[in-house]
């Protein structure tokens, strides 16, 4: 099929390839069906995790993110990625280094030690942005690619680092800068034949970031619990997100909440790529849904 020439270096991060490989696999396959070719980016490391790592030393954060960017510059390819945390590290550092000569020089002094130089020649995109953009894929193309409409109620969790702070982001469409009540990923979910449900405080954090999941897990789970209460109130059959760390927090988090708070929701959590894969006809096995903490069975029985 005609790929339309949209090719990107696929920046993987850590949690997708190493904990939810179905998200990685579905990203590649669903993109291909939509004319996007995701190519291996060899030798990438952790982005590095903006909260966990940036808290220690921001200089190292800039340098390590820049190293990952240089790998793509060497391929002369823009980057596509599937994680909000990685988006902050990779997109934001790229943006900062392009506009701040002092920062750039500082980073290049360090990169010189490993024979690398950041030049600022490529761009970074979250795959959701590429899906949303009609010049790359777009809602009609997604609708056309759907074989199995996912007739269920789905709560969309946007996460934090993709869109916030809006003054430090440069999206193509105005709908993507609405950080109070965004709808653009709801639109992407609707394109799959699902009903995106509106719930209280939809832009609240999942609670995992900033190293908080590691520092005080109960505190982070209390934040997640509040979101789950609101999502259940809206009647969600499943949760979808575009960040594997949020996915981990909602998925493993529900099991941890069962253990520590004694309360169960049993709402399956799927990355948008996994949902899109399902809608395009990929099987639950092809999506490694059995690796999920919360069983996707009730949701699968509803939609398949």
């Amino acid at each position, binding site marked *: 099929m005609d790929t339309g020439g949209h090719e990107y270096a696929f920046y993987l991060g850590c949690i997708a390839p*190493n904990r939810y490989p179905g998200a990685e696999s579905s990203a590649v396959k669903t993109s291909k069906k939509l004319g996007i070719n995701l190519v291996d980016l*060899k030798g990438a490391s952790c982005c590095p995790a903006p909260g966990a790592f940036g808290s220690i030393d921001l200089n190292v954060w800039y340098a390590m993110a820049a190293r990952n960017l240089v790998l793509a510059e060497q391929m002369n390819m823009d980057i596509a990625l599937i994680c909000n945390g990685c988006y902050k590290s990779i997109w934001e550092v790229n943006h900062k280094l392009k506009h701040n000569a002092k920062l750039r020089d500082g980073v290049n002094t360090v990169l010189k030690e490993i024979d690398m130089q950041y030049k600022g020649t490529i761009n970074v995109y979250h795959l959701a942005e590429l899906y949303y953009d009609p010049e790359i894929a777009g809602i009609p193309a997604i609708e056309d690619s759907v074989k199995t409409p996912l007739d269920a109620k789905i709560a969309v969790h946007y996460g934090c680092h993709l869109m916030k702070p809006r003054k430090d982001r440069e999206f193509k469409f105005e709908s993507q800068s609405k950080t109070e009540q965004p709808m653009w990923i709801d639109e992407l979910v609707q394109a799959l034949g699902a009903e995106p449900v509106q719930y209280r405080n939809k832009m609240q954090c999942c609670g995992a970031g900033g190293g908080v999941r590691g520092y005080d897990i109960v505190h982070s789970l209390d934040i997640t619990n509040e979101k789950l209460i609101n999502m259940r109130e809206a009647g969600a059959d499943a949760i979808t997100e575009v960040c594997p760390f949020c996915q981990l927090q909602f998925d493993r988090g529900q099991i941890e909440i069962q253990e520590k708070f004694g309360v169960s929701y049993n709402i399956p959590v799927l990355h948008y790529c996994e949902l899109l894969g399902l809608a395009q006809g990929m099987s639950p096995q092809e999506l490694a849904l059995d690796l999920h903490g919360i069983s996707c069975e009730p949701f699968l029985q509803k939609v398949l």
Partner: protein
Amino acid sequence: MARTKGYPEALDKKLQDQYFYPNDESKPDFLKSVKEISMTIPHMCYQCGTCTASCPSAPRSTYRIRKFVRRAVLGLDDEALTDPDLWLCTTCYSCTDRCPRDIAPTDVIMAMRNLAFKRDIVPVNFLKTVQAIYSSGHGVPNNDVNRAARVKLGLPADPPTTHTYKEYIPGIQKILDHYKLKANADRIVKEREG
């Protein structure tokens, strides 16, 4: 307009000093350091409280981002850096998104955390992340259960990251060593855990 006649030098000095330092514990250099690392403008804060009102951690702890910004402006370094709530910010950036003065309170927290680390004040989980990245390139490294799942999906057991291309790891270690991150992380972990 009335003009001061009695002590013009003192008036000049007062007009040079832009910030308010209430007592001996205030260190002007703290605000300078925070501003430099955070690249934001905490001195513009008029304590409206929109940040704390937007914060997911505030309703369930004693963490108050507004107070941390105030401490930056007042130069109260010890109070800020020894507060255990410094580590409860999830970096959701809601405060930054809504601040009416275009300050990035989240970045103030990150700057303070960087300064705390320099004093060996840091929760051990952050250090474990540094160690994982130093040895494998990943903050969350692969494991055998996942490797088996990857192979079942038709993916290579390890992703094409530093897990497969291990020749890139020395380069990463060089970056971390340039900032002495590994040495300091190891030292602090040893002191805490023996």
